[in-house]
């Protein structure tokens, strides 16, 4: 059958950075446009809604602080996920690692808290990182040893970790003074992270970690090995890289970062441990890490914008009565469009109109 017009995709020669960036920004705009349709369905004015979202995220000093508080866990978790994804280790166990990190920190905050504040906080940080790291190490071990699918294992471990926290909250750690309400007691004052410039000190951690991870990935041997493994496991083998060891180190690091997030959230935001501790950060960070193309500096920017989206999202919830889940849909849409836009960075479409030729006229 002869089609009058054919459309084919053809690989572009290496696209310019500018052009690639433009395409991605275009995708975000399209995503917002698609979301507008969605908002119109709710009989609301999209422009109004978007403006209110901006207001909700940056309108007052308090809201800016809240946005920053939301940015912190996203940045640190995304950094961790970025390291794993760079190795093509499709770990989606952020939630579980955060929960286990929070659990370990909470143990010291609740039951071993007769230490000076700096010591206690340091112990909590180390414990949370160790717990998150070990929790991440389990699926990494299976992966390195037998090639077990890490995506599903890490996800199953999220559920297990949350059930564990739930068990503590409703069982042995339940606060007897909470009048029948199933909650764990608040941390004592010396287990709470101090504030700096009005926001808890986690933001300093986040900034330091962005720089540290950037240097780690780009300027250390291990970082280089991680990149090689991610691109081609066979090349890594042939270069004599110890693949198992590198995977385990990287994942330990990644889990450690997520564990730290758990500690920060429990100590500085929630002042206790609860099932809501993760707040879906483990999943949202997958999106931010991917949108930031796994680059540490970009992760900082994207996380901030995403936190603004979340903060603005909860604000419009109160103003317009739009449910929280609308923000999830918006996240999904943005990522869909950006994922799709990668294609236009790498390929272009060619439209060809075929002229019907008289059969057999050719031959000399």
């Amino acid at each position, binding site marked *: 059958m002869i089609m009058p017009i054919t459309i*084919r*995709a*053809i*690989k572009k020669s290496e696209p310019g950075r500018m052009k690639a960036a433009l395409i991605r920004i275009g995708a975000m705009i399209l995503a917002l446009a698609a979301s507008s349709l969605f908002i119109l369905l709710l009989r609301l004015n999209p422009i109004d809604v978007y403006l209110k979202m901006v207001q909700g995220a940056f309108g007052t000093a308090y809201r800016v602080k809240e946005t920053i508080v939301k940015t912190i866990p996203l940045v640190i978790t995304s950094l961790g996920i970025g390291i794993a994804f760079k190795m093509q280790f*499709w770990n*989606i166990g952020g939630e579980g690692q955060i929960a286990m990190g929070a659990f370990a920190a909470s143990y010291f905050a609740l039951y071993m808290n007769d230490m000076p504040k700096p010591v206690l906080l340091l112990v909590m940080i180390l414990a949370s990182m160790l717990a998150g790291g070990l929790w991440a190490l389990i699926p990494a071990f*299976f992966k390195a040893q*037998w*090639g*077990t*699918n890490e*995506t*599903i*294992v890490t*996800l*199953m*471990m999220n*559920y*297990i970790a949350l*059930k*564990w926290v*739930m*068990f503590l909250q*409703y*069982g042995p750690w339940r606060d007897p003074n909470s009048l029948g309400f199933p909650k764990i007691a608040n941390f004592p004052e010396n287990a709470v992270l101090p504030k700096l410039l009005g926001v808890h000190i986690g933001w300093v951690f986040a900034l330091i970690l962005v720089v540290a991870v950037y240097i780690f990935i780009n300027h250390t041997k291990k970082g280089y090995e991680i990149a090689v493994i991610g691109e081609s496991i066979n090349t890594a083998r042939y270069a004599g890289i110890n693949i198992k060891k590198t995977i385990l180190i990287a994942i330990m690091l990644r889990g450690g970062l997520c564990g730290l997030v758990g500690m920060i959230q429990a100590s500085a935001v929630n002042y206790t441990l609860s099932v809501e501790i993760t707040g879906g950060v483990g*999943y949202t960070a*997958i*999106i931010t890490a*991917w949108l930031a193309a796994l680059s540490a500096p970009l992760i900082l920017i994207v996380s901030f914008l995403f936190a603004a989206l979340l903060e603005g999202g909860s604000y419009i919830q109160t103003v317009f009565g739009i*449910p*929280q*889940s*609308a*923000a*999830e*849909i*918006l*996240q*999904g*849409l943005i*990522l*869909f469009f950006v*994922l*799709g836009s*990668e*294609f236009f960075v790498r*390929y272009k479409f060619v439209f060809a109109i075929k002229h019907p030729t008289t059969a057999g006229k050719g031959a000399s």
Partner: protein
Amino acid sequence: MEAAVSFLHAAIVAGTPLLFATLGEIITERSGNLNLGVEGMMLMGAVIGFMVGLATESAVLALLAAMIAGAGGALIYAFLTITLRANQIVSGLTLTIFGSGFADFVGQDLIGQIAPEKLRMFFRPYSLPVLGDIPFIGQVLFRQDVFVYLGYLTAILLGIYLFKTSVGMNLRSIGENPGAADAAGINVTLYKYFHTLLGGALCGLGGAYLSLVYVPALQEGVTAGRGWIAVALVIFATWNPYKAIFGAYLFGGLDIIGFRIQNLGINVSQYFIDMLPYLVTITVLVVVSMRKSREKAGPKACGIPYFREER
């Protein structure tokens, strides 16, 4: 005996949503697409199926709507990964995020609503003539609701489709080596789209079973991770629809074992029992990955986008 029959009967009921989702993902992965959006598609099916069921009180329309919802989710995934060659893993994860947001959003006003009387009557257990009277086996297998029977039928039909028909063979070759299938004159893109959408439709059905029959009411996040267990079950079943039947019912059993144990008066925390399906899933995955064999491995090209003019 009585207890065993009742336990196995309930295990099948609990395993049915898993069965549909697993079958859906088997068909999807056989076409070379690893769609991790099962959870999202199930949720979309659960909500839309429930809403249409509530509005029309028609079981057929409700199920059709659930299938369309699941297939709609799969269509987004298919367009991204097949036409635009996006990363399959991230696309699937995004579909799950989107699907759960979509379900929460659309279903927010209906949370807690119970499925209409007429539908509950339609989906009540029904003993098949003759078969239902077989002692034990009949009592377990053939005194079920229509939806469960539909599950048996779907699994068997898919098995025949995959292994005994030429179309099924074409499908299997695409999952193994799309380049070779393409050269043999098979329309790879069409096959991928069709089976990814069919897979999504089945996941949608699995979700609808939860909201319409199993609970039967709309809850937030009604799937509770079953979509992910289904993804693991595909590996457990070695991409074989027949084996998916056993896998799904086994996990159905794990899902309900908690109540039974507590009924026996054994004092184990509810939360530990709740961990069981997840722990067993991990164990299964590890064991499966330990024994490697060519015949039991998954479709070789699964997870890799296919593009004819790549060079």
